[in-house]
């Protein structure tokens, strides 16, 4: 679970760069289950090229929970799908970098090879249980098809197993549920079903892409707890993608913060909460969650809008919204740096991407400068409440 240093300035070329091979060997020797090395995803669209994921590298050990946190449009969903191989290169989609899972390079597998891994070794839980279940197929059939496919169970055995699985994810009356259709279940129940499907073959890695965003607040915690419970019981690794930093505080071992397609900070969970280095992480933490109102309403807590990935800002991607932005931030993109060297930066494996990391004299200086002129170098007004107490 050590993020390797990215070769950020290197133009993405092919998926099988020598460094990739090296990374794979290294990751395997380290006992990492999943190693992601310098992954890029670019979409060629009518309006231009979208840099959805830019040089992301990370690794994940068996049984570890890594949270990927970021706003909408930060590229975390694309990243997840690229990790799994659901997004592949095509005429409109340019990919590079390598993903190694359990010693085999996923990015080199063909469709058939990937199919053998999917559902069996790596499983996916999607954001919206309303849309991720086939509306015209019975719950039971949607569970049993993986069992029949991957575990070669007979139809009868698969049915029995499906009932068991539904019971294990906490659904009442599982015998009745298997004969029901998705629309007959509530959102929370459906998400339990998708989890049951994902876990049906006891995968070693679960990718959970915002598994609770679409759910009622009361249900969110239940589902997350269920996931955590199952993860520890089955001993599988989990990549938990979310936009909500709060929910992963007690539920992850490590956190990677993504912004505009890049990892901007990564650290063990406790370390990150203790000493966030990247102003963006800090902002996410300080954002006050809405207590009332519909859960899906997104309040503008961090001023400004997420960057347009068609034309990302030069320099630091966060600079237009950053309260500490200086001239350098607008022109020069900061590399991912180790936090160990920083004041109070005792922790290992903490990297960040900032010229003026939080908790350093440089940062204090930048804060002062901006407060004096009333705006950042990018021209964003600095208000009192933006400055952390």
């Amino acid at each position, binding site marked *: 679970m050590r993020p390797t240093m990215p070769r950020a300035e290197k133009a993405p070329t092919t998926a099988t760069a020598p460094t990739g091979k090296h990374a794979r060997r290294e990751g395997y020797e380290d006992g990492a289950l999943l190693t992601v090395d310098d992954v890029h995803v670019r979409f060629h669209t009518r309006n231009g090229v979208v840099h959805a994921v830019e040089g992301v590298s990370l690794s994940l050990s068996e049984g570890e929970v890594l949270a990927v946190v970021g706003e909408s449009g930060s590229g975390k969903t694309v990243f997840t*799908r690229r990790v*799994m191989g*659901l997004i592949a290169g095509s005429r409109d989609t340019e990919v590079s970098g390598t993903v190694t899972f359990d010693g085999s390079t996923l990015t080199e597998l063909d*469709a*058939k090879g*990937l*199919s*053998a*891994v*999917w*559902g*069996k070794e*790596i*499983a*996916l839980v*999607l*954001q*919206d249980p*309303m*849309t*991720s*279940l*086939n*509306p*015209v*197929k019975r719950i039971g059939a949607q569970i049993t*098809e*993986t069992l029949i*496919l*991957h575990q070669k169970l007979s139809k009868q055995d698969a049915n029995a197993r499906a009932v068991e699985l539904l019971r294990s994810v906490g659904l009442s009356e599982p015998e009745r549920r298997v004969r029901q*259709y*998705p*629309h*007959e*279940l*509530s*959102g929370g*129940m459906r998400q339990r079903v*998708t989890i049951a*499907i994902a876990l049906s073959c006891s995968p070693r890695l679960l990718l959970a892409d915002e598994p609770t965003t679409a759910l009622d607040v009361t249900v969110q915690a239940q589902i997350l707890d269920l996931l955590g419970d199952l993860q520890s019981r089955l001993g599988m690794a989990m990549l938990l993608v979310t936009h909500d930093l709060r929910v992963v505080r007690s539920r992850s071992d490590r956190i990677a913060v993504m912004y505009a397609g890049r990892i901007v900070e990564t650290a063990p969970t406790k370390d990150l909460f203790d000493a966030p280095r990247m102003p963006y992480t800090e902002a996410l933490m300080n954002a006050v969650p809405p207590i009332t109102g519909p859960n899906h309403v997104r309040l503008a807590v961090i001023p400004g809008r997420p960057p347009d990935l068609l034309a990302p800002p030069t320099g630091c991607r966060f600079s237009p919204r950053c309260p500490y932005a200086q001239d350098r931030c607008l022109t020069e993109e900061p590399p991912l740096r180790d936090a160990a060297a920083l004041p109070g930066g005792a922790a290992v494996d903490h990297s960040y991407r900032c010229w003026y990391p939080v908790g350093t004299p440089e940062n204090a200086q930048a804060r002062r400068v901006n407060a004096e002129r009333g705006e950042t170098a990018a021209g964003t007004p600095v208000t009192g409440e933006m400055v952390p107490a």
Partner: protein
Amino acid sequence: MAEMTIATPPTTTAPPGEAPGRAPRGGRRKAAVRRIRRRLVHLLIVLIAVTFLSFVVIDLLPGDAAVVVAGDNATPAQVAQVRADLGLDRPMLVRYVDWLGGVVTGDLGRSFRTGQPVTEALAQRIPVTFELTIIAQVLALLVAVPLAVYSAYRPGRFVDRTSMTIGFGAAAMPQFVFGMVLIVLFAGGLTSILPATGYTSFFTDPLDNIRTIILPCLTLMIAEAAVYRQLLRSDMISTLQEDYILMARSKGLGPRTILLRHALRPSSFSLITLSGVNIGRLLGGTVIVETLFAIPGLGQMIVQAVFNRDYMLLQGGLLFVAVAYVVINMIIDLLYLVLDPRVRRDA
């Protein structure tokens, strides 16, 4: 109308949506029954309206049935006699009520022209048209569905582009041109391997039956297949964007399983509706094909009945077409119930 194939846009047929997890679970069957009953009442009103409309239209048609029946040599007095014999001297409403009474008792009257009971005429022609329609539809679907599924799987690739271009071409030609080309190719022009005209009943000679309907069915199915492919492809591409397809993929299912087991059924609603509408339409009028290949079908009968002002026959034909429309709509509704569980609960 022979070539109104494309006349139904896919959007008309989106199955009714509903809120998830809301309706009472127990009343599912009851709701389905209520839904069917409501449709039945609606369709019965449609039937009455169509038959009445056809009486009005027929009444407005210039040209006198009595003159046609009496022949070119008839004197006015004689025409009047014929008119009285046929009951055409009575007011339209009276005739309609009278006819409706007959319909209820299963008596559709007799052809003005040949004296053949209308029920007998229908019984002779419906099987022919039915066979032609169903076989053409099945052929069209057999061609269209695999092409559409593959085109949706690989949009913009060779199969998609080629079948699209051929499909557009098929929709760009009047049906009779196809029929003529087929006759030239297979029946007397380049080769003589199939009959150009005629129809043999399946029960008379099954082999001959197949030989006689090949060309008419091909002529009918070409444009249909093109439209079906386009429609299913479009709906399928839309389905393939759904999360549950991504989910299915992430389960490790192969493309074939995903396309056929996961994507086809939820993509097929518009296709089923259109196919149903087309069956209804074709049952009422494959006139051009029937004329070209001398097939004794219903379409020819209806059109000839208009030209000959053979009102009883026409009325009977129109009644059948309306009934067919109604029945097929019922079947489509029922198919929805089978295919889309979401519809089952709601009404």
